[in-house]
């Protein structure tokens, strides 16, 4: 076997370059096809990571704890006490990187000119900072000082719609403990920048201020937490659920379904793209290889007349294809790596403006080569390509020497 390979390998390699134009065309087909598959996978992965990070780091965290029923009806009626006992010790353990307690209720904000619905979030700024980027996105004014801060931080766009600004007063109305309307004047102390939907929805004040407004003592409605990257969140969730069966504990996959959908969708999209590209490549490869085989019928006849077994002819043609596609795959990988490295600082989606927010992506995508994906997709393309060329190879091995020799 090795002897035969030693004979066939140089033969196959030289055969490839007997018709360079045909070879180069096939190599190009394969390399461009693979390049598109690999580059798409990198981009989509960057998109899904960006979408997840953007959502999770704004407000969501990786998991949240609520009273049962809160997610369907976010009012203070569905509130919970501060975490205690085992839940508190899990939250304080290394299994949780950071957590924050919030009072998050549907509310109405009123300025001289407009009345708009929004969500009032009472929070402890020191804790909030450890899992949310919003405190650092305050462009004008300041973020909250502490849990007793009586100021309010609005999104830029909400402030614009209210025609209000830093230093002015807005009135916030929310449902209190007894279901009555509670209202309070807040001074705008800061404006934050975020995706427009977030800017319009969330306004922040001190946790204690919000608790006083709604009259619920030290109760809260939400705990958001993040876990270390290298640990499985499912494990932490299971332990939390076991410790507090009365609470509704969810991971970001439930809380931010769009981000989760994006992250699973990209895998399927890449597979679909792979099949489409592969079908196109296969047509190109099989077509050129069939042409080659027909052109070389006299050659195969001669080889067989000289005593080469049909099996070896089949092997020889298959080897040629394997090398041909192999070169194409190698070039495809090289092209993809180069393409990715052409954007060392990420791809700025700024030109899409706020449109990028609609699909949940952050403003900058950071494409990264994933060696595992590259090897997997390349192997799939290479193997399937070789399998497709078995057809022309078989045709070559079926050539009858007498017929072939008499043909020209």
């Amino acid at each position: 076997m090795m002897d035969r390979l030693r004979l066939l390998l140089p033969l196959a390699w030289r055969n490839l370059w007997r018709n360079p134009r045909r070879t180069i065309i096939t190599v190009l087909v394969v390399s461009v096809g693979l390049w598109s598959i690999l580059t798409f996978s990198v981009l989509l992965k960057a998109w899904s990571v960006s979408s997840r990070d953007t959502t999770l780091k704004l407000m969501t965290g990786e998991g949240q704890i609520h009273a049962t029923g809160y997610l369907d009806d976010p009012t203070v009626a569905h509130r919970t006490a501060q975490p205690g006992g085992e839940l508190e010790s899990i939250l304080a353990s290394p299994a949780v990187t950071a957590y924050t307690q919030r009072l998050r209720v549907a509310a109405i904000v009123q300025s001289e000119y407009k009345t708009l619905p929004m969500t009032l979030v009472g929070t402890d700024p020191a804790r909030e900072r450890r899992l949310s980027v919003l405190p650092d996105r305050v462009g004008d004014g300041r973020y909250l000082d502490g849990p007793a801060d009586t100021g309010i931080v609005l999104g830029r766009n909400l402030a614009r719609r209210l025609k209000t600004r830093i230093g002015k007063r807005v009135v916030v109305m929310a449902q209190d403990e007894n279901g009555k309307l509670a209202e309070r004047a807040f001074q705008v102390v800061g404006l934050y920048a975020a995706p427009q939907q977030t800017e319009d929805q969330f306004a922040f004040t001190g946790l204690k201020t919000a608790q006083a407004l709604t009259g619920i003592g030290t109760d809260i409605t939400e705990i958001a937490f993040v876990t270390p990257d290298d640990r499985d969140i499912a494990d932490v969730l299971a332990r939390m659920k076991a410790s507090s069966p009365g609470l509704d504990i969810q991971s970001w996959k439930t809380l931010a379904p769009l981000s989760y959908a994006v992250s699973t969708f990209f895998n399927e999209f890449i597979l679909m793209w792979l099949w489409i590209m592969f079908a196109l490549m296969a047509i190109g490869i099989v077509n050129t290889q069939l042409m080659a085989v027909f052109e070389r019928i006299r050659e195969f006849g001669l080889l067989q007349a000289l005593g080469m077994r049909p099996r070896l002819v089949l092997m020889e043609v298959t080897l040629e294809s394997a090398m041909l596609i192999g070169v194409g795959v190698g070039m495809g990988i090289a092209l993809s790596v180069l393409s990715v490295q052409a954007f060392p600082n990420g791809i700025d989606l700024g030109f899409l403006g706020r449109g990028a927010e609609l699909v949940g992506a952050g403003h900058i995508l950071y494409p990264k080569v994933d060696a595992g994906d590259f090897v997997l997709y390349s192997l799939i393309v290479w193997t399937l390509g070789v399998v497709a060329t078995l057809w022309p190879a078989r045709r070559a091995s079926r050539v009858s020497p007498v017929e072939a020799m008499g043909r020209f």
Partner: protein
Amino acid sequence: MIRKAVFVLLVAAAMTAPAAADTTAPDPDALLRAAFDNWRADSSQTDMTMTVHRPDWERSMEMKTWTQGDDDALVRFTAPAKDAGNATLKKGDETWVFNPKLNQVIKLPASMLAQSWMGSDFSYNDLSKANDLLTKYTHKLTGSTKDGPHTVYSIDATPKPGAPVVWGKRTVRVRDDGIMLGETYYDQDMKPVRVMTTEKVSTVGGRDYPVVMTMRPENQDGKWTRIETKTATFNGSMPGYLFTLSNLQNPRN
């Protein structure tokens, strides 16, 4: 209800406080409060016309209103046919609307209370936050002018610290006999946002009364809402069923 809106918003006083006219510098707080107290002790029944004017159209609606004390008000539209039967009931802090076409009573959520009422330049809040001006502002007399036999006082109302109001201030013009002559709402930059003016004072229901009042939002040319009181009865007794949801949906009057 509209009467209430008008009065309360504007801090109108239906009854005269003749002593005020003689005092060189009346206490603005007391002036407003006396005016309010006079009005609040009343119950009232009025027939009004509300005209909503917009740059390219104008329409008028006829309505009947009943008020009792500080908290209860009922407004029912009687014309044109398109609007007849629409009614708004305010009882305490709660407001309901009835739409005859839907045959439904809807309780207004807080988010709706700042919305326009029947397409006019008044909001539901104008109806339900009736005595804001008395309780949430501090009052200061800023000047007085002579208007024939009467003195007209200008009063600045500034929000008390921490009071849940959005206005920068409100200025009110009250005649010495407790007739509301105008009110301006300022934003927190002290730019006027909307202006209410009394265009005609005459006798109705046995007392001097601002019978024609117009609300104009600032910087919106050609937009205003005028309310004209045609007949009024004050201090009549109100049947107990009047301010009920049942009466809102199935009128007994």
